[in-house]
């Protein structure tokens, strides 16, 4: 073994190199405050390794990016862990960068003769942020898509060459295949290669000038090996532990629903860019994209010179603290504004629902070549919600919202259709107080109609007790997937009540006086044969003005089929969705 080592050493001088690397003097002894640089090197190393492994699974195109990430996350053994480590390490890198920078600034290590290295550090901060930005888009989910679009739009603010830069980075005018191939080349090739080069120079310059120590020295001098390396390694282990804990706690990195330009999503960047996002609410884009960044860069460049005097150094330290405090404050504002915004919360919930749903379908059926976004578009559960929100929710509600969970601005003027035609829903409908409430017909002219004033309002206590039975009959007509069918005998019994065979209801207040079930007669009110069933509801939505339903008494309900407002298959999807599940209490 020694012979081999000697042979190699004779030809490479490796021993001298290792010795030089390890026996670097640490003036004033090993200290915890020096660990940040090593931690960052470790984190970057982890990112290069895990990133290269992720590369084995990733396919950059608009039909395969989300899909390949989904496959890694849900089908490949341990894929979620690998991706999770890469995701949370990236966040740790940002935190460590700030700590490293602040240590350098507070200790005055940015001053002569280390100016050059300080500038290289700032440059590396920029490259790391660019890595974060490009990595955010790669899964091609809603979050990455919408947030990155904001970032690339900001590029166009650069005078003269902005629009060209934007087109070059995006790979065209619109987001597409080339956006992903370019972002991927940046994220996995150009940027990390630049960072490796910068790290080499950074470490070389650091070694050239040695550790910057404040006099008087706290302890007697020691060496990098093993004292400082032990502290460095312990700190790296702590970072590792934090990242693994986050990865396991959140079961990997999030993956939202696949990017869909027609499916709106509130664009928010990763948390460490939130302060910039918030800033853009107050300043014009040109300021946010050009003036402020240029000012910051120039200011940082000048800091080593400003820091020559004691006052200058204090100004520099103050500048960074102010920058951090400002960022924290803006981040806090951004988060609290979003938390107070009900619509934002609903949008996040909706995206979560879509993500769960598309993953459920992909697991069961696989993903067609057109990509996962086509799965959501063809899914009745997803499309039903969207159709309801777009076409019904300006008057109707679903569990009080628009079908997807969003609150609605317009006042409710028609019934809440969650659990439509179920026993519970009809039972409530037949109670006068509920009938005239906003949840049912309170917003329509039917609240003053015959049914309300002359029938429901007039029922005696005995008659009222029979109404839940009528509700059971009507719900049985609906044949809802989540309700049990009545036995034949029971149905006949309830039908007799509906027909008022035993004169349980006062004349004029019996159902059969106006409505009809199972006979040829046409009553003056909607025919309840097959009430709430798939066929009945489709026909109703197609044309509520048909004599079978409201006829001329229809109150503002559009005839979606007759007037071609919805395609027949859309009405079917909508009906299937409304009938699929009971109301949630």
């Amino acid at each position, binding site marked *: 073994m020694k012979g081999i080592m000697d042979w190699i050493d004779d030809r490479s001088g490796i021993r001298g190199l290792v010795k030089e690397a390890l026996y670097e003097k640490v003036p004033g002894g090993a200290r915890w405050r020096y660990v940040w640089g090593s931690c960052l090197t470790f984190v970057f190393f982890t990112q290069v*390794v895990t990133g290269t492994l992720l590369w084995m699974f990733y396919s950059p195109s608009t039909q395969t990016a989300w899909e390949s990430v989904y496959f890694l996350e849900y089908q490949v*053994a*341990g894929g979620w862990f690998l991706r999770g480590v890469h995701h949370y390490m990236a966040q740790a890198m940002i935190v460590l960068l700030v700590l490293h920078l602040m240590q350098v600034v507070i200790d005055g290590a940015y001053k002569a003769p280390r100016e050059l290295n300080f500038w290289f550090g700032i440059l590396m901060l920029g490259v790391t942020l660019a890595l974060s930005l490009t990595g955010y888009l790669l899964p091609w989910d809603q979050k990455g898509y919408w947030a990155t679009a904001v970032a690339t739009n900001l590029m166009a603010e650069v005078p003269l060459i902005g629009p060209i830069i934007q087109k070059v980075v995006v790979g065209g005018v619109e987001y597409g295949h080339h956006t992903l191939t370019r972002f991927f080349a940046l994220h996995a090739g150009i940027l990390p290669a630049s960072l490796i080069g910068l790290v080499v120079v950074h470490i070389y310059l650091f070694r050239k000038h040695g550790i910057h120590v404040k006099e008087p020295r706290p302890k007697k001098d020691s060496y990098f090996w093993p004292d400082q390396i*032990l502290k460095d390694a312990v700190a790296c282990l702590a970072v590792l532990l934090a990242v693994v804990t986050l990865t396991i706690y959140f079961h990997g990195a999030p993956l939202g629903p696949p990017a869909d330009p027609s499916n709106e999503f509130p664009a928010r960047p990763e948390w460490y860019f939130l302060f910039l996002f918030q800033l853009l609410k107050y300043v014009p884009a040109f300021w946010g994209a050009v003036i402020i960044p240029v000012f910051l860069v120039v200011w940082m460049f000048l800091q080593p010179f400003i820091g020559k005097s004691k006052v200058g150094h204090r100004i520099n330290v103050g500048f960074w603290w102010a920058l951090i405090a400002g960022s924290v404050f803006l981040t806090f504002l951004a988060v609290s504004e979003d938390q107070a915004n009900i619509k934002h919360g609903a949008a996040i919930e909706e995206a979560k629902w879509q993500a769960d749903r598309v993953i459920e379908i992909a697991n069961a059926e696989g*993903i*067609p070549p057109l990509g996962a976004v086509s799965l959501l578009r063809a899914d009745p559960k997803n499309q039903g919600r969207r159709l309801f929100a777009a076409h019904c929710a300006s008057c109707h509600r679903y569990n009080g919202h628009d079908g997807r969970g969003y609150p609605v601005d317009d006042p409710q003027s028609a019934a809440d259709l969650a659990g439509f035609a179920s026993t519970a829903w009809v039972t409530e409908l037949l109670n006068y107080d509920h009938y005239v409430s906003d949840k049912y017909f309170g917003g329509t002219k039917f609240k003053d109609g015959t049914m309300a004033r002359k029938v429901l309002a007039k029922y005696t206590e005995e008659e009222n007790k029979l109404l839940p039975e009528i509700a059971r009959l009507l719900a049985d007509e609906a044949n809802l997937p989540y309700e049990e069918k009545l036995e034949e005998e029971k149905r006949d019994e309830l039908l007799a009540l509906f027909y008022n065979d035993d004169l349980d209801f006062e004349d004029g207040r019996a159902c059969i006086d106006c409505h009809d079930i199972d006979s040829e007669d046409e009553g003056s009110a909607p025919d309840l044969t097959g009430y709430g069933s798939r066929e009945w509801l489709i026909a109703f939505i197609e044309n509520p003005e048909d004599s079978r339903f409201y006829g001329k008494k229809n109150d503002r309900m559009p005839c979606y089929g007759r007037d071609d407002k919805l395609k027949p298959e859309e009405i079917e999807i909508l009906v299937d969705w409304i009938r699929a599940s009971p109301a949630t209490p």
Partner: protein
Amino acid sequence: MTDSSKKQEKQEDRRKFIVTSTIGASAACALFPFASGIPSVLDPATRDKGNSEVPWTKIAKLSSLPEDGTPTKFEVILAKVRDAWTTYTDIPAGAVYLARKGEEVVAFNLKCPHLGCAIDYRKNSNDYFCPCHNSTFALDGAVTTENSPSPRGMDTMDTKVENGEVWIRFQQFVPNIKEKVPV
């Protein structure tokens, strides 16, 4: 033992502890990134695709095959193929020779078991011939020459005839070994 030698020993112990912990912690940090990806990278090797998963695929009508047993070439269009995340439908997956044997059918994979070239059927000599390395096969798929480059006969697949339609379980096999082993 003097006090100073005791002190020295203590210091040496301390140094040993520091060196061991440093090496341990550094090694853990250096290995972790690789370790985090091992299960994912090895995933393809740990996935077992048993014979039971091979689906039946409809190839042709029995009546379209010559009754004298002359082989006919057919494309194999699989109804559903999963390639990692994408599920394709009606995708060409290869080709087969079908030859009728009364009411039954034999199916040979078009690929030569030697190195995967496409095998021809020669009408004149009424046998199979691989134009790459000159392997020849009889109509029953067996190798016909002693020093045939192909280590085994042509690869057969399960077939069945239902309602006049020929179905096969289309499979690929490991090339250039004596045994017929599904890939």
